[in-house]
């Protein structure tokens, strides 16, 4: 039961992007469309779960003094695996996400979870934590991407929503739009939580 609660918690109350404000660089940079957000979120989730598994299983072997370099090697390896596989089998997504895939290595969300959670917990909770955080991150990127795509290009997942007459709000696709959409979504979440209390 507590495992399910953990997942729920990391999706809303401790959402990586909207609550912990971790991993904002990719969250702001690649979310020009819902599809990009989803792809980036899933790639990050994969790396997060895999690195949590390895870090948690090696937590008794890795001496504290070299834990950060060890974590980074593990994370960087999984990122490279994702990058190679994506280029081989999802070439279009690879082109869209471009340089942001290698940058998953420096996504502080992943190192943060390895350091704060996986290196101190057993395998199962570490996997659950990775899955939960990953889902939360993916959802956040998807929503951010969907909002920006909807207003910035008038489409959702590539399908036209508003019809021909819609004049896209270009700002939303450009970098400032990321900050504006992010701020509005954060405000919305805070408002929702405040109402509930």
């Amino acid at each position: 039961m507590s495992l399910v609660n953990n997942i729920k918690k990391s999706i809303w109350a401790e959402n990586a992007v909207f609550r912990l404000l971790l991993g904002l660089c990719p969250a702001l940079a690649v979310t020009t469309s819902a599809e990009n957000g989803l792809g980036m979120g899933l790639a990050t989730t994969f790396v997060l779960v895999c690195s949590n598994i390895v870090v948690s299983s090696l937590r008794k072997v890795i001496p504290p003094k070299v834990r950060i370099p060890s974590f980074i090697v593990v994370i960087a390896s999984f990122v490279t695996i994702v990058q190679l596989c994506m280029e081989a089998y999802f070439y279009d997504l690879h082109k869209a996400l471009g340089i942001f895939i290698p940058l998953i290595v420096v996504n502080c969300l992943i190192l943060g979870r390895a350091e704060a959670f996986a290196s101190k917990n057993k395998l199962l909770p570490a996997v659950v934590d990775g899955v939960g955080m990953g889902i939360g991150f993916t959802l956040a990127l998807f929503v951010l991407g969907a909002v920006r795509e909807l207003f910035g290009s008038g489409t959702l997942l590539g399908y036209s929503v508003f019809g021909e007459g819609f004049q896209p709000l270009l700002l939303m696709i450009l970098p400032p739009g990321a900050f504006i959409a992010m701020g509005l979504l954060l405000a919305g979440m805070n408002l929702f939580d405040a109402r509930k209390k």
Partner: protein
Amino acid sequence: MNSIPRLVLVLTLITAGAGLVLSLVESVTREPIAEQRRQEMLRALQAVLPPADNSPDEDTVELVVGQDKRGRDVMRKFFRGRKDGQLSGLAFKVVAPDGYSGNIDVMVGIDPSGTVVGIEILSHNETPGLGDKIAFPEYKKTFAGKNLDNADWRVKKDGGEFDQITGATISPRAVVGAVRKGLEFYRDNKAEVIADSQGGTQ
């Protein structure tokens, strides 16, 4: 416990393991990645070349177009499309270094006389919604049928006849300039490019 040899050993084992896994993944994905890149190249070639029945990416000529800052030769590859053994068209890549943000890579397809059949934007970083319209089909179409004799290779704002894009003059200007230079290079080196042997420089 935390003696130096132990730290070294653990870190070495972890990096060795990572290296092993990565080399395995690399060997599995090497072929598909090469194939994907080739397919992309072929798609671009098909888009800009007149109908051909050979593999243009295997029938190529490379010529020196100039020197880079360090004095090394910069090569340009010409892809040759053939129909029934006859040369039907050529394609080559030009780089517009003066885009609004970074280089714009353009694949240009011409018929043997030097008239543009089509262009394809391979990669660019122009502003979404403004400069990136250079990659739209309506824009790319404006190049078809143009050659050095029948067109003034400047954007309208500079007195030429190529459309600029509202709010973005720099990107089209860069593309038009790069294509023009490419055509001029072809005109000046035509004999070598269409020669049947793999002549020129290797």
